[in-house]
């Protein structure tokens, strides 16, 4: 028997309830995660914690793109993070954790391990 890492998926909400280009926050194993649906239907999940202010707010930022890469801007001091990688495009030495996300039977799920 091979030891297999147990992947744990937590339900967030119905995919149809996600407003395109507007995030929501979800609690995944007691951690706040920001979940976004971009205009093309793709899902992204990253930590909700804004590393510059320490406030749990990234889900409330404005979604857009920078040179074609989908982004969210922190609502506090407006630094821009790339949705796919969590890297801060205004200060690449800073990044936030990202999480796998998927749709299963119409429900958005985020993986926490």
């Amino acid at each position: 028997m091979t030891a297999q890492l147990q992947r744990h998926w937590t339900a967030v909400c119905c995919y149809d309830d996600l407003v395109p280009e507007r995030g929501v926050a979800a609690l995944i194993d007691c951690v706040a995660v920001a979940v976004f649906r971009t205009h093309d239907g793709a899902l992204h999940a990253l930590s909700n914690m804004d590393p510059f202010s320490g406030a749990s707010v990234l889900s409330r930022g404005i979604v857009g793109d920078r040179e074609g890469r989908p982004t969210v801007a922190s609502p506090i001091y407006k630094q821009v993070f790339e949705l796919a990688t969590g890297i801060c495009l205004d200060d690449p030495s800073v990044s936030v954790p990202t999480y796998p996300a998927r749709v299963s039977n119409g429900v958005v799920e985020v993986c926490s391990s």
Partner: protein
Amino acid sequence: MMRTVVVAGHGMVGHRLVEALIGRDLQRQWRIVVLAEEARPAYDRVALSSYVDSWDAEALTLPPVADDRVELRLGDPCVRIDRRKRTVRTASGRRVRYDALVLATGSAPFVPPVPGHDLPGCYVYRTPEDLDAIRVAAQRAMQTTVAGRRSGVVVGGGLLGLEAAHALRQLGLSPHVVEIAPRLMPMQVDEGGGALLRRFIEGLGVRVYCGHATAAIEPDRGRMLVRLSDGTELDTDVVVFSAGVRPRDQLARDAGLPVGERGGVLVDASCRTCDDGIWAIGECAAVEGRCYGLVAPGYAMAEVVADRLLDGHATFPGADTATKLKLLGVDVASFGDAHATAEGALEVIHNDPVAGRYAKLVVSDDARTLLGGVLVGDAEAYGTLRALVGAVLPADPGALISPSGGELDAAALPAGAQVCSCHAVTVETIGTAVRDGATTVPALKACTKAGTGCGSCVPMLKKLLATHGVEQSKALCEHFTHSRAELFEIVAATRIRTFSELVAKHGTGRGCDICKPAVASILASLSGVLNPGSHILDGEQAALQDTNDHFLANLQRNGTYSVVPRVPGGEITPEKLIVLGEVARDFGLYTKITGGQRIDLFGARVEQLPAIWRRLVDAGFESGHAYGKALRTVKSCVGTDWCRYGVQDSVGLAIALELRYRGLRAPHKLKSGVSGCARECAEARSKDFGVIATETGWNLYVCGNGGFRPRHADLLVSDVDTQTLVRTIDRFLMFYVRTADRLQRTAPWLEELEGGLDHLRDVIVDDSLGICAELDTAMAAHVAGYSDEWRGVLEDPAKLARFTSFVNAPGVPDPTVEFVEERGQPTPAHRRPGQPVLIAGPTLTVVR
């Protein structure tokens, strides 16, 4: 040992000398003692007429020179020079020894000795104090009950006289101008230009009497009667003399120094008198016998003397007496040999009285070299033409001034041509500055000083930037090449109603935190006209909003929000105050009185906002839009209701204005205030639009703000009734909403508006663009379409559903939000990533 230079006179030119000498005296050879007659430090006399807009003398003050080598003695004029001992005596009896003495005493207005010239009610026009006195007289005249229109007579129809006439009109008097020469501005314009100018000026309600002398002024039943040489009699309340100036050369005369034929301290081209320790500069000097009544030649003299004091060899190069002004909306310019006095000079004239345009170029006998010119009605070409004086013309002179061929290429200017005559800056200097990285007008101003005098060369600076290939980008962000104003016009003119469609048709990509809120604001500003009854969180628009607009509350440092209900005019009942207190207590919120005369409740979590607002809306509160780029508050003072000085109901008006404009989305926030009298307790003059009560109506001030770069508001209209006031504000706001840049408040907007306050007045008072009906309709639609945004959320379950901290755990509060108690109220626990949370405030409450 340091030597001492005494400067007599702290006017514009004396001040310039101090600046220049301090700036260049790197070896600290000189200390400077400035003896000033006036009680205030040097100010911008050229801009004196703008004092009437604000009555703020501070605004005219020139930037002081802060340096330990300068001693400035205000209000202590120099009264005697002892050339043998090299000392001067001041009015207060002080004696100052000098190594060099520079006379910069300026000139005094010439008052012709007509009988009655010294009656009370007769004034000159040179200092803020003169204008204060004229204002008091005008106000007194307004209050008398004698029949007839209140009027003022200006003696002298030159540049200053016309400025004075304008000021009288602003003070509510109807102005008359009497000029002894056969035309207005005889020094600058010729007969043809003068005739057109006169038509313009008369069209503006100024009565003009040219070719008439003022024969006598007589007291007449509490007013005055001005008699002209042809027997005409003018009833008047105020007389202003502006019949030229006389150099103030008395000190020099008393000291036995020679003066020019027509007065003025006689100096050579180095600005030195026959006494090698004494110099003269500015309007009091007669350089090689000639006096100059403009500031630019004075500045050049100051530079010469600064150079000479430091052992240089500069000489006064002669001066450009070019002028361009916009008076009562009329462009007048004259430059070079305007009266064609040179041998063999030819005049090329284009005169179109129907279009209101007169242009004359004076050229050399071979028609190739430009010598001078006169422009009236349209002085667009002034900047380029003036710089070309003395140069070979790039085109046929006739073509240069014909309306179609008027566009001159700035690139054609020779390197040595002067762009800014106030500061003697050449095309070459600008070019070097641009190459060194000064690629905007403000940057050029900072490093070359060009454009910081009279400002008339600013359009030329823009053209030069363009010839250097510097594009002044107006693109909003990487997604739109348009400016906000252009996007506004696109949305207004097309059927595009969503961001997605707009970015697909007119932009690129998916937008960002710059263009999305900007477009959301445009859609909201236009919603009254395009989409009545819509809500800022409807459909896709919700995703465009900044977090503040999205949750209709202000985001705070710890991720919580503040709640600011509208308290129109700052007036609130005890019942409502109690509700605010109860809501704050029940939800554990911090409360504070804001600087905007209302109450802010801080520390609400997202999921608490609907419950808080349900209580508030039930008690009759509505959104205060503290979160929006929208009308914030209209502050008020108590006015006639309570105050013993109030002359109008300021609270009533403030409430009416706040209710009228509430919810109006704009490029930036809008603030207002209404004061019940001139004591101005509501600080209306620091607002985007502010109203101050007068005995008979209201004064409207616009484009002020506090904040980062404070600016006092300018007087737009005075003494108007409430209906006119409201109509003017309606148009002002809609014009701003339509044309301003993103996040540009009204003050910087006005500063960038071509033509400035006069243009604004033309557009919204005189309807010069013919858009007032549109502006009125837009505002009417806004007022009719207003509804409370918070009520809209509470009535719509779909919108309410978004107010959760966590979608998958709606009842759970955000665990990172923690509070500590500070002065008896909750405040955010200071949380920094990786650092422990402070569990008590930095100061402890001490219980006595």
